[in-house]
């Protein structure tokens, strides 16, 4: 996503990237980052929570005017309404890459045992 932001910005359009894992900024170099502490899959807010969705979007929009240097990271003050252990965001089955990594780790452990 950060790569897409860079390309759009380079083409002459202002971008703001909302981002949960904002340290990716060190790898990618996005023009403006709005860091948000929301679970994966629901960056703007929960189902039906129009108030939070609007506030997050508005904060990201305003960053387009207020950020004054390339690579600016703004930490948004939103707090998710559930604790992480109560928050379900995972897919029903692990993604192929996660399944592959876990399988490899298991094989390594078995080989080492």
């Amino acid at each position, binding site marked *: *996503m950060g*790569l*897409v*932001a*860079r*390309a*759009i*910005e*380079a*083409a*002459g*359009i*202002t*971008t*703001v*990237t*909302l981002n*949960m*894992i*904002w*340290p990716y*900024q*060190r*790898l*990618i*170099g996005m*023009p403006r980052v709005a860091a948000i*502490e*929301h*679970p*994966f*899959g*629901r*960056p*703007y807010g*929960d*189902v*039906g929570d*129009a108030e939070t*969705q*609007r506030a*997050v*979007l508005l904060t990201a*929009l*305003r960053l*387009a*005017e207020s950020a004054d240097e*390339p*690579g600016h990271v703004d930490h*948004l003050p939103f707090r998710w309404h559930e604790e*992480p252990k109560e*928050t379900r*965001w*995972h*897919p029903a089955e692990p*993604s*192929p*890459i*996660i399944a592959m990594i*876990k399988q490899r780790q298991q094989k390594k452990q078995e080989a080492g045992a």
Partner: protein
Amino acid sequence: MNTVDPWRFAGGFLSRVLGGQIPEEPSHPPIPWTPLRVPLERARVALLSTAGLSMREDPPFDMELERKHPMRGDPSHRRLRADASAADVEANHLHIDTGYIARDLNVALPLDRLHELAKQGVVGSVATTHYSTMGYQGNDASTLEQQTAPAIAAEMKSEQVDLAILAPV
């Protein structure tokens, strides 16, 4: 000042996998910069999500590619209509629970909220077209970077977009 904890919802395993990709110090090329050319209340705004969203009448993102080759992800993009709601859109992404998007598109692509802000005059207008990519690109994002991203930028330019708000999922 409040600092966002990037790993709060990730869990230990994913934090280690993703965190391991991120350098301690910035390692990116110079950052492109385009100041907003009009005030926000006159800006034409487009949204972009990495949730693998497609209009139901369009081909969905290719999930079989990733199932067969876990280190690859569909590098293409889809155009989404400004009046799309959850019922018009399919979400394909193997790394999240897409059920929330199926119930309320605004959790990842807040078109309803953007229309409201345009109506209130907070932003100038809502772009005709919005966009989605597939966030997972495996170990090769070169097609996304060199072909898809410039194509999206050109489409936005042709529709006079001033500001794009991007959100990974």
